[in-house]
């Protein structure tokens, strides 16, 4: 009887401008293999299923514990972290592609720097007076902390952007992640004092009004962040700010 194997069908691309192509690799099955450990096997012996010598597949990965967000890929058509996709439970040929909503650097490595630019645009920080010792921070209601904590686990992995039908090359929508962060900043007593700046950044093109309520974000978020709650709440916040500005100024 043939030994059990896992076949990875990988979409490859030499550089951002070159054409894509597919290569298949066959890896002996191990229950605790995951996509990354299988890509590591390929690195040690970069030979395709047909026996052709090739280059090691280039991929982005770091923590391998699903907290850094690096190894996000599209596996069997769905976006997720590759490190937590175990070989156990995968049957047949497994397709592995880079995320489609970000420019490919090479093979499975994509450039997600636009997400960090969005954080800059939306002033996603608490504007403290200084780092010198000013004593304890404000008290926080433990229930509110528990809820806000969910949003503070966002690792900017981009799953929510990948799955969002409103994020693509013909729209400027910044995606759900940034809305979650603006919500989070507004939950902190100091952050709340400056929430209007962030809401302003979400008003324009690419901001929260471009959400189409497909709600894929909340389904694919690997950290189960209640993104749609943030979208609803921040939508209300921006609306109220707008009406306030309209009638109070």
């Amino acid at each position, binding site marked *: 009887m043939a030994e059990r194997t896992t076949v990875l069908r990988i979409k490859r691309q030499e550089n951002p401008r070159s054409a894509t192509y597919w290569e298949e690799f066959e890896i002996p099955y191990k229950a605790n293999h995951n996509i990354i450990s299988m890509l590591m096997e390929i690195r040690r012996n970069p030979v395709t299923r047909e026996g052709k010598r090739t280059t090691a597949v280039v991929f982005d990965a770091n923590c391998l514990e699903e907290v850094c967000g690096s190894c996000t890929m599209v596996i069997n058509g769905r976006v997720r972290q590759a490190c937590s996709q175990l070989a156990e439970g995968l049957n047949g040929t497994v397709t592995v592609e880079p995320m489609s909503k970000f420019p490919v650097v090479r093979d499975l490595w994509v450039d997600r720097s636009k997400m960090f630019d969005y954080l800059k645009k939306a002033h996603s920080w608490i504007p403290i007076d200084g780092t010198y010792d000013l004593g304890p921070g404000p008290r926080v209601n433990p229930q509110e902390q528990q809820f806000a904590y969910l949003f503070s686990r966002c690792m900017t992995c981009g799953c929510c952007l990948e799955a969002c039908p409103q994020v693509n090359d*013909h729209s400027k929508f910044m995606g759900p992640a940034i809305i979650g962060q603006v919500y989070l900043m507004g939950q902190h007593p100091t952050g709340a004092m400056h929430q209007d700046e962030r809401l302003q950044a979400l008003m324009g093109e690419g901001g929260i009004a471009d959400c*189409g309520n497909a709600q894929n974000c909340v389904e694919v978020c690997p950290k189960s962040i209640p993104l*749609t709650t943030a979208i*609803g709440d921040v939508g209300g916040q921006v609306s109220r700010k707008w009406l306030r500005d309209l009638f109070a100024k």
Partner: protein
Amino acid sequence: MAEDAALATPAVSSGMTADERHWLLRRLHSLSGIVPIGGFLFFHLFENAYVLHGGGAWWKETEFTRTLPFQVAIEALVLWIPILFHAIYGLVITATSSPNVGAYTYSRNTGYTLQRITGILAFLFIGFHFFSTRGWYYATGVESTYARMHSWMIDPVYLSIYLIGTLACVYHLTNGIFTFTITWGLAVGPSAQRLVNRACVALFVVLAVVSVAILVAFRAPA
């Protein structure tokens, strides 16, 4: 410190920025779908439901909508301008989408896709409906009498167009009410959204039944 100015809150400028214009357009689009367009659809179904009491009742009860003072101005302001805006801007929004319901088969994602499809269908149907009824009247003076409507509804092609068109309108409205409550921050959490969604599905079923009943009622001979 030296760079404090750069870190300070930017000054709030007066006058409408490009951002605020974008926001205003999106909010008007969302609002116009409910008021007046959604409101009119409710009313339109309600007045046409008199056909269930027979053609005569229908013609009599709908008379006032044909004999308003400043008829054209009111129709234009309350109906045609909002609908045109909602439809054209809706097409602009639809152009920015990239549906992926094949890969992500969640019910909300299906709703998202259907909202765009029914939006296009509703736009085509409303155009057809207007030009063949009120538009036709303005152009030729021919009224959309019961006999005229009856002759269409017994024609399978017309009936199919009306069935698809009205159901698309009804879906687009009821799903739109649901997303409206999210967009404006009225239904925020998942359980609130689930509740509103259920209510909107129920509303869809009611309006769909009413619509079909109206269309079928027109098939009865005068």
